[in-house]
């Protein structure tokens, strides 16, 4: 153990709920969560299916360490085919619902088909049933959470839901759990809404036990918690400043993209940084940040709990936004701030609240607004489309208006909900979309951090920093320093990070532990907890297997090496300022070497040899 060894299969078309045994042979090869959920998706769906049709499935998966006392052991992932990219989607979230699901006795829920009317799934330990959600459809995530908590009484009930953006078809809608934690990327919330599934309501009181070697496990957990506590990033930087510790750091190295990635540094970075969140404001003397907060079992506690200045234009006369809620993470602050040229901390905290309230990805949203602003400044979008709003870079009012529109799918919000790729195609400038495979970039300019260019180009879910965070090595020197402006050696670095991260994402723990932990720190914990021998080598091999399984899914969905590319802006237009001045991203130098290291064809296809070597399905 500690797999619960049980899956809940929910057929939304027929309205049936069934218990199944977890495939333990697959668990031995794919661990859990990201890996195991993907294995089920690959087995049960056609990669060419319509992501928003009844043939796509939506899988909520925990890892074997989810719900245990291993630090950060509360993660779950949502796995499905993405409507934004057409590639595999796997979005990871913390909060508390993952551990609650495990504590109710389930490793995974597989939703299939499509309900004829809105429903939610209520799980109370062994008992699970579909309940009408007619009264919840058309409500925000926050309103839905409130109504469901009132209905189900028990305050320990954990809820994940989709908001109005998902209902109105926004292609980057998220699943929001515990009010402000998100399975955020690739439109997994859009898939959920397409199935007429409004929410997942879970209460689990059975707990997680069956630890293989309890004494060794508790000792190992205590030892590794200490490693996190003593590390400068996980013990100091992240608790104090959150991921926003990066805003000034990345700007200084010249890799903070601004104005839809036209620039690689942002003058206003300091105003929207983690440090700025600690500054007392003029109106009430309070800082933006109230406190840091942890997800289930996390001893790092990077989460931000913030307020908006009550006198700010975004919330004037809107007392419902005056309390505390989930504050800015770095990626969100970058996308809605630096990339749109907005340096108004309250405005981007407001749009962050709205992203949580109505469930959409702040990275894709911010980057799409940035693209829309560039289109507006070119005259391709005019005030005819925007109800008279001047969609200019740096306009906080334009940004908050955009968030309100996307939240409900009103007016121009429909266009913004298409994401950057489709928006730029619609308005005649496909080159201005800063995306890979249709998914928007996060907060690192690959002209200034070369490894991130290869990371974005080859990520199995489209542009994403979390698939191989080489920033750790290239900027922070973890586990060892490499030069961010040099592309040599990055192919191997990216592969190593991709494989290790795939394993981390499959265990039930948070990738942020990897600022302090390597697989060497994780293996003793999972080995003491779970049946079988879990060595560093086995975890690494499982990670490589998972990566190739995802890639194979994408190949079968019709993607090739031609999709492993970056926008021309990053390949041809040199960085203008800072240490990276004059540089483009050398993707052409890194990609062939990467394919070779992977053992794929020169066209980026997984080969039979690799399938055999890693025991992948045909």
């Amino acid at each position: 153990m500690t797999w619960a060894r049980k899956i809940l299969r929910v057929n939304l078309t027929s309205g049936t709920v069934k218990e199944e045994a977890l495939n333990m042979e697959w668990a031995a090869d794919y661990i859990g969560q990201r890996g195991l959920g993907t294995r089920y998706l690959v087995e049960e769906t056609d990669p060419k299916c319509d992501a928003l049709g009844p043939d796509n499935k939506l899988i909520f998966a925990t890892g074997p360490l989810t719900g245990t006392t291993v630090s950060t052991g509360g993660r779950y992932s949502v796995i499905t085919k993405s409507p934004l990219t057409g590639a595999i989607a796997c979005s990871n979230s913390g909060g508390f619902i993952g551990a609650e699901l495990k504590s109710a006795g389930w490793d995974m829920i597989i939703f299939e088909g499509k309900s004829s009317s809105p429903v939610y799934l209520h799980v109370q330990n062994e008992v699970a049933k579909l309940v009408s959600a007619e009264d919840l459809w058309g409500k925000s995530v926050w309103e839905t959470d409130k109504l469901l908590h009132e209905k189900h009484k028990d305050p320990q009930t954990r809820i994940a839901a989709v908001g109005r953006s998902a209902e109105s078809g926004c292609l980057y809608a998220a699943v929001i759990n515990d009010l402000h934690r998100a399975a955020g990327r690739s439109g997994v919330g859009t898939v959920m809404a397409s199935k007429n599934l409004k929410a997942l309501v879970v209460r689990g009181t059975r707990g997680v036990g069956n630890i293989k070697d309890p004494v060794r496990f508790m000792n190992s957990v205590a030892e590794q918690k200490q490693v996190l506590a003593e590390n400068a990033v996980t013990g100091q930087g992240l608790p104090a400043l959150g991921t926003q510790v990066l805003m000034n750091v990345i700007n200084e190295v010249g890799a903070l993209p601004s104005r839809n990635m036209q620039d690689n540094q942002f003058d206003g970075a300091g105003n929207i940084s983690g440090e700025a969140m600690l500054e007392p404001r003029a109106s009430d003397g309070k800082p933006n940040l109230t406190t840091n907060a942890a997800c289930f079992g996390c001893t790092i506690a990077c989460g931000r709990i913030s307020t908006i200045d009550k006198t700010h234009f975004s919330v004037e006369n809107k007392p419902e936004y005056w309390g505390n809620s989930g504050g800015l993470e770095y990626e969100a602050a970058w996308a809605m701030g630096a990339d749109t040229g907005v340096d108004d901390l309250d405005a981007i905290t407001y749009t962050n609240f709205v992203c949580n309230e109505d469930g959409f990805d702040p990275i894709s949203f911010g980057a799409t607004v940035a693209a829309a602003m560039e289109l507006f400044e070119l005259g391709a979008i005019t005030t005819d489309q925007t109800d008279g709003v001047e969609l200019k870079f740096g306009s906080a009012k334009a940004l908050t208006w955009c968030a309100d529109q996307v939240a409900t799918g009103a007016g121009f919000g429909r266009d913004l909900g298409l994401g950057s790729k489709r928006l730029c195609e619609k308005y005649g400038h496909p080159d201005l979309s800063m995306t890979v495979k249709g998914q928007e970039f996060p907060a690192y300019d690959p002209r200034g951090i070369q490894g991130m260019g290869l990371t974005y180009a080859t990520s199995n879910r489209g542009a994403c920093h979390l698939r191989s965070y080489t920033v750790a090595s290239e900027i922070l020197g973890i586990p060892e320093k490499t030069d961010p402006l040099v592309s040599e050696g990055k192919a191997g670095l990216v592969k190593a990070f991709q494989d290790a991260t795939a394993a981390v994402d499959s265990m039930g723990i948070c990738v942020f532990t990897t600022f302090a932990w390597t697989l060497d720190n994780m293996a003793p914990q999972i080995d003491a907890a779970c049946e079988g021998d879990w060595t560093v080598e086995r975890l690494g091999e499982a990670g490589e297997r998972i990566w190739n399984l995802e890639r194979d899914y994408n190949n079968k969905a019709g993607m090739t090496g031609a999709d492993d590319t970056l926008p021309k802006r990053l390949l041809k237009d040199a960085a203008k300022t800072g240490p990276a001045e004059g540089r483009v991203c050398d993707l052409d130098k890194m990609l062939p070497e990467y394919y070779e290291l992977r053992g794929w064809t020169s066209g980026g296809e997984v080969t039979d040899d690799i399938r055999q070597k890693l025991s992948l399905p045909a």
Partner: protein
Amino acid sequence: MQRSLYIDPDKCTGCLQCEMACSYENEGVFNPSKSRIKVFTFHDEGRFVPYTCTQCDEAWCLHACPVEAITMNKSTGAMEVSESVCVGCKVCTIACPFGTVNYSQDTGKVVKCDLCGGDPKCASACPTSAITYVDADATGLDKMRAWAAKTDSANTAN
């Protein structure tokens, strides 16, 4: 020396490590719903508050118990429930002004914090020292020290 649990909510991040440590020690399972210490989240205020039994000297639960199932552990000062004596009448859960004695449907007995026999696992699991186990005569010491540090020595008469 007797020691007490001392809770500083300002330091709590809501991670529930204490709840898992408690349930694992007492029930052999990681299960916040079985924990004797509870962390309450006040979302709108941005506050997390751990709460558990403070081991009253004149304990309402002890006095209310009709079968003398609750007794004081002389070395730790904890009010302990004897499972073999407890009849599950729940009178103690009514008597306790703080709600920290609760009934367990699984066992038909009441459960409460017993300081883990003098080594409270919640305190050792807490990553931020929001829960500490300190000299019972000096639970205010850290707070006094913090206020002392804020005094302005320039204003001191000399």
